[in-house]
């Protein structure tokens, strides 16, 4: 059904007039999304439908705007001074950039895991998991808090490793454990969508496997978008893959094509995609 292709040239890189914006179920649709840093157009005209309860991988060479695009999906992009977007992003059919939409509310619905693990150094492991509630001064009974901590840490495959030291600092964990702690922190607030920017790039193969199997478990409840430089990883976990490219430095990045992951890796419609996934460039 949704098999958007593109021609990597100037104007409209991709059209999805046939792409039905999925309503409900936490799907995301980007329409004609231009993303700027000040006057610099970093990503142009993205049209993309992200299917609910599935894993979408974003791949492409360095600097082509994958992180930029990902951050624009939960309004984290505008945290950077003078950064702005043009176009629409629909979550369950509603424009998250619409007038009167509070970015804080959007970020509660669309969680994010960063490339580098960033637990709060002032907080214990348990407090880190509860940070989304505690920082928002949400009142929790002790038992409810304990439940959330256990559920989220189990969800992030970390419970057994830390259950005996929940009150120790989160930054005392290994890098892989910290990253899973950050995932637990993100899922503790029960978002609808989880954005992950190279979540395994700082991890060893074992932690990477743990995070990957975690993603596969989570996708029954969450819509997941993951940026990765690891082709095998994209092929292993994702259902659909979008390939981003850039024509040269200073040029905006754009989506070359998006399709089912097997198709992207076996028989993509664009030459550039095929060159990239087979390692001929990038």
């Amino acid at each position, binding site marked *: 059904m949704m098999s958007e292709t593109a021609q990597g040239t100037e104007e409209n890189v991709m059209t999805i007039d046939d792409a039905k914006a999925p309503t409900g179920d936490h799907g995301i649709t980007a329409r004609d999304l231009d993303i700027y840093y000040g006057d610099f157009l970093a990503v142009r005209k993205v049209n993309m439908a992200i299917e609910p309860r599935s894993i979408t991988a974003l791949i492409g060479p360095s600097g082509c705007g994958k992180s930029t695009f990902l951050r624009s999906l*939960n309004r*984290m992009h505008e*945290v950077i*001074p*003078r950064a702005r977007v043009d176009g629409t992003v629909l979550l369950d059919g509603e424009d998250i950039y619409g007038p009167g939409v509070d970015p*804080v*509310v*959007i*970020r*509660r*619905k669309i*969680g*994010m895991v*960063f490339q*580098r693990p*960033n*637990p*709060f*150094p*002032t*907080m*214990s492991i348990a407090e880190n998991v509860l*940070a*989304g509630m*505690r*920082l*928002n*001064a949400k009142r929790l009974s002790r038992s409810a808090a304990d439940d959330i901590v256990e559920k989220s840490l189990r969800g992030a495959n970390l419970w057994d490793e830390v259950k005996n030291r929940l009150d*120790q*600092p*989160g*930054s*005392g964990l290994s890098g892989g454990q910290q990253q899973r702690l*950050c995932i637990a*922190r*993100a899922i503790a*607030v029960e978002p609808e969508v989880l954005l992950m920017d190279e979540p395994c790039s700082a991890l060893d193969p074992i932690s990477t496997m743990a995070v990957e199997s975690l993603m596969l478990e989570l996708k029954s409840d969450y819509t997941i978008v993951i940026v990765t430089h690891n082709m095998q990883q994209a092929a292993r976990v994702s259902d659909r893959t979008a390939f981003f490219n850039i024509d040269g430095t200073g040029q905006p990045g754009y989506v070359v094509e998006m399709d089912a992951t097997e198709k992207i890796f076996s028989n993509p419609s664009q030459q550039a995609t095929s060159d990239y996934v087979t390692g001929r460039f990038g």
Partner: protein
Amino acid sequence: MDTATQPAGLIRPLSRSVLPVLVVVALVAAGAFSFAVAGSINIPIVIVVGGVVNLALTYVVSRRAEGHRRAVDRTATSVITTLMVAALVPLLSVLWTALSRGTARFDLELFTETMRSVVGEGGGAKHAIIGTAIITGLASLMAVPIGTFTGIYLVEYSRGGRLARVTTSMVDVMTGIPSIVAGLFAYALFSLIQGPGARSGFAGSVALALLMTPIVVRSTQEMLRLVPNELREASYALGVPKWRTITKVVIPTAVAGLLTGVSLSIARVIGETAPLLVAAGLAQDTNLNPFSGRMTSLPVMSYYGYAAPGFPPEADYERGWSAALLLIVLVLVIFTVSRILARVLRPKGLR
């Protein structure tokens, strides 16, 4: 031959006891030199000559035993160490002077007596201790909130706009204000408000606040900049509004540094003499009202003890040195308390 090209086994590193021996030899030589030239042991001469002799000795000995590259390495290390010792000398000398002269009157009376109708011996610094506490306390009450909030604004809210640039350069200019100018400003201001010649503790604390504020702004800015942006982003990504991110993530992460900055700024102004001389003046008795009447502080008392001693002058000298020693002790106490607080409040993960 260059040692780098020798097989490793041929390098016999100097034994650990050699370098201290060289230092002692150099110092003895320098002492002899000083005695020959100046007729006595002159500490600056001993330090300078001893340092140079030690450098030369280190190079020669190490060169013979270990070769050129190691000798250069050792010499560079020695240069740095010597300069550090040289920097410590004035500090230790000041401490030693204050200790040796200040202890004579560092007694209970110093804390319980004022200078009211004291001529010659006796008397104490109670009035000046209270004055310093009131003036510095009020100055901190003004400068710490203003400075901290300005710093927070500059780092967290301003997005490099004109207001931020103007504020930053004003802060820079303020850092460079000579303290006497701050004192004259406060004096002139209160002369306009309270009538010509008005001096009060509050005028003094306004002058000190003027000096403190830019220091607090600066240290706040630096400490907040040290908080990694990733932590702010992690908080935003959890749907936490900006003000909560600042109060619950950024400030707790930086709190140890913020406290150190505040205590540094207090230490910086607690010994200010010139502005208080002008704005708060000298009194012989305790004055608990900062808004009217002169109020003495420790540095001013110390200054007058030396500048305008009574009879016999030794009594005033001794009280002056005791006041100075007390100031040093106060600064040390402030630093120690802030260190302890910082340790208690430091982010758990960095312990």
